[in-house]
């Protein structure tokens, strides 16, 4: 018997929060934000036809986490250097240096951080799983055509759109990057 197609496709991996983690999934007609404590899951749905906008803003988390982990690397690295200078085995201080170095490299590879809010008619909600610029761009590039297709009937056609008054200020430039 053929396997039934999965109703949800994963958009992001779980993003760890304070005692919770959250992830973002895509269904046929809606986005699903899953927040989990490990033993309990809460589901928040955003129907594509209801999404008014995504607001993407910069976050300082990347900078501060790099500073904190960088300090840890320095603190853990000094004993390693001292051990090497003293021609002793640096194995014990390396035990502390390597994990912090891995975290620092992983943070650098994941790239700049950001905040993404989804706006609907009734709510504005932070999408915690979209916390990195690169991942956010990929997800939004995938979502944008789907949302536009779901709202095709709402888009005003050029023939029916009311003429703009001559004194009206130009609309703000939309950035997607």
């Amino acid at each position, binding site marked *: 018997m053929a396997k039934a197609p999965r*109703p949800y496709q994963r958009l992001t991996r779980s993003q760890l929060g304070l005692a919770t983690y959250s992830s973002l999934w895509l269904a046929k007609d809606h986005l699903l934000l899953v927040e989990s404590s490990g033993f309990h899951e809460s589901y928040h749905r955003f129907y594509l036809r209801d999404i008014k906008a995504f607001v993407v803003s910069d976050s300082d988390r990347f900078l501060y986490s790099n500073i904190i982990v960088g300090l840890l690397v320095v603190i853990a690295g000094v004993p390693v250097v001292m051990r090497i200078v003293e021609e002793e085995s640096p194995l014990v201080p390396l035990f502390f240096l390597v994990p912090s170095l891995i975290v620092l490299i992983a943070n650098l590879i994941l790239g700049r951080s950001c905040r993404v809010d989804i706006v609907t008619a009734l709510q504005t909600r932070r999408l915690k799983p979209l916390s990195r610029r690169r991942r956010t761009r990929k997800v939004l590039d995938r979502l944008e055509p789907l949302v536009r297709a779901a709202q095709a009937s709402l888009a005003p056609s050029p023939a029916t759109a009311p003429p703009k008054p001559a004194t009206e200020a130009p609309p703000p430039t939309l950035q997607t990057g």
Partner: protein
Amino acid sequence: MCRSCQTDFSLIAFPALTAPSRSAKPKAVEVEEGATCFFHDQNSAETVCSGCGRYLCAVCNIDFGGEPKCPACVAADRRGGSEAILHRILYDRIALGLAVLPLLLWPLTLVTAPAALGVVAYGWRQPASILSKSRARFVIAGVLASVQLGGWVFFFGTLWVNR
């Protein structure tokens, strides 16, 4: 840039941002024999509920997963279907947690192993996460808890024989 907090941001806007809000406007019954809404006999029926077949006016017609549904069927879906589920308890993870975590303080397994088996028995029939229907965690938890219980039976059996 936000004029209030001076924060740079990008806006990806969709047609719904500027579209006028949709509001349901029911039509009054025009002729006495006209079909009326099941819930509002003053309103003309405009569609049929895909769940129960009741006639619905524009107020009662809820677009639910692309199908017209009445409020009663939407409430029923909340209990049974996956479209309107708001949360789920993950019994498989509770069982696995009860089977694995107490191994750090192994005497606790005397209590937690039967508890894990109880959660496996109860949770097996409960609805799983809407994202994954796998029962693998139940199986692993059940096997681990059974082994722990077997160990305790062996331990107490040996004590009883050697008393």
